């Protein structure tokens, strides 16, 4: 039996912008914590290096969280839709490869939150009886055609049996 290649389709490059916006929002929350730390330091005359350590850590983390991590995550995300199954491949530290046979798919949806909408993106969710799998950040056309393709393949697969 031949070993099949790993899935090759990439998700939209715009995913990067979306993930970075989300990451930046998370950084804002941490920023508030650092500001609070500054206020406390001034008020209770704590050593001034404490908040500065906070600032440096925050900068390092932001660089990782906003710049590097999304890029890496995007590069790792792959999917493929074959006639008989859907395959997903993702993860940086834990690389996870999933196979979902067509005849286990119960329904396919596309989803769009406010940020996705701004960028014209959609996520495709694939539901089986035992859980939901998501392909994030596809362009609207890709998402719709993918959903239709899966729906058709699922229908055909059922006629087979």
């Amino acid at each position, binding site marked *: 039996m031949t*070993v099949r290649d790993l899935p090759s389709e990439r998700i939209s490059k715009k995913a990067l912008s979306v993930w970075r916006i989300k990451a930046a929002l998370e950084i804002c929350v941490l920023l508030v914590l650092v500001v609070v730390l500054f206020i406390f330091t001034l008020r209770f005359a704590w050593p001034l290096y404490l908040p500065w350590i906070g600032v440096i850590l925050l900068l390092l983390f932001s660089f990782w969280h906003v710049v590097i991590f999304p890029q890496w995550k995007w590069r790792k995300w792959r999917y493929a839709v074959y006639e008989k*199954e859907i395959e997903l491949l993702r993860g940086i530290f*834990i690389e*996870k*490869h*999933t196979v*979902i046979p067509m005849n286990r798919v119960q329904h396919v949806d596309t989803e769009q939150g406010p940020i996705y909408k701004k960028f014209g993106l959609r996520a495709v969710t694939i539901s*089986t009886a035992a*859980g939901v799998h998501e392909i994030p950040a596809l362009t609207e056309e890709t998402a719709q055609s993918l959903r239709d393709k899966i729906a058709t393949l699922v229908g055909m697969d059922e006629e087979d049996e």
Partner: protein
Amino acid sequence: MNDWSRLPVIALLFMFLSRIKEFIVPLIISLFAGGTNPTMTFTRWLFPFLITILLLHSVFYWLFFRYRLDDHQLIVKQGVFIKKNRYIKKERVQSVDMTSSVLHRLFRVGKLSIETAGGGLEAEAVFPAIGQGEAEKIRRYFHDENFLQKSEEDGEEGREEWTYRVPTKNIFLAGLTSGKIGIVVSAGAAFLTQVDQFISDDFYERTAGMMMALGMTLILVIALFLLLITWLVSVLLTVIKYGNFTITKRENKITITRGLLEKRELTLSLERITSVRYLTHPLRQIFGWWSIYVDSAGGGKEEEMLSTLLLPLGSKEEAQTLMRQLIPEATMPETIVRLPKRARERYIFRTSIIPWLLVPIAFWLPNGYFYIVVPFLFMYLGYRRYKDSGYELFNDRAVVQNRNFQLSVSILPRRYIQSMSLSQTFFQKRKELYTLEMRILTSSGGRMFRLKDMERMSAKDPFQWYRKKQ
């Protein structure tokens, strides 16, 4: 067959009792409110008023409760203010469960619950009390393809039936070796170490003096005696709960009957079983005893982790004989593919890392140096976990074997595996090891079966096996 049926009048009592149980807190509050304020007429009438409302509600509930069996479905009409009509299609039913408490049995009725796929924790339809004959009719309606046609001939006598009664000895042994005793002892010990903070010194002075006089031996004897009592009680409870455990197979349905006081009768269809698990723990393993649990897409009790107990305890041979009759393809495999050597350190590391990290803290405590044994015990557990883990792929089913503290062998039919994943952490990648995950539908939603640190071999590759044309 087409007219509406009602529950027997005695069902009223059970409906009323369950209402009282639901409203027990307001009822007690109203009772006390009436008792302490004799001047206030309003609070005094609150309790009788509540009771009457509940009683009236039960009466109307009973009056409006109707059901009917037609060609394809069971229709249940219920509700006083909000009418609910429930249509339960024959083919969607996962299990029919009849529980008869002592009170139920007094009136020769039982509580019947019908579970459908993906229903979650709540049953699709519940009959609070129904006569044995009617229950049997509903059971046969769901579990006999041509029941309606056959009913005129009053069933066939010659149909094949196979029965296995779990020997009482096994149930007794299940109680003796159940984990309950361990929980009781450790909870008691934990309690005793904490309780001394709350006892006054004065009490200590007096009792300690007495204890000294009695001597250490007597204290030990008392402790052992208490231990023995709790053990016996737990054995007794197990025997009462699982006594008379009988499994009957009729065509492709099994009926599990159990219980000495509260009787439970559960019918489920064999092809709906989404996984079979053989379980044992170190103590039982010494004697080679196993228990079997099955999962289906609906039903199952919370206390059994939403699975259904199929065999409380039996030798490996008994377990195998039983499964050969029920689901021959789900017998325990003779051999499995073990994990590669390079997985061993990872298992030991994972299991013992937290106990090792706690070592510095332990040294702060009085007598803390005894703690040093603990990480080593966990290292041994990690080694056992490595030794006992493995998998096997057969044509139509996968087997995953692993251990937390209990050893479990899970049989997963391929057609019920909803999705499969192989994942690798950074460290696994360096050692070319994978974590295998398979998702199965159970009544709690999806259950994940996981095997850590397996090797991918072209001869037995999970993905190739799973992708094969089904």
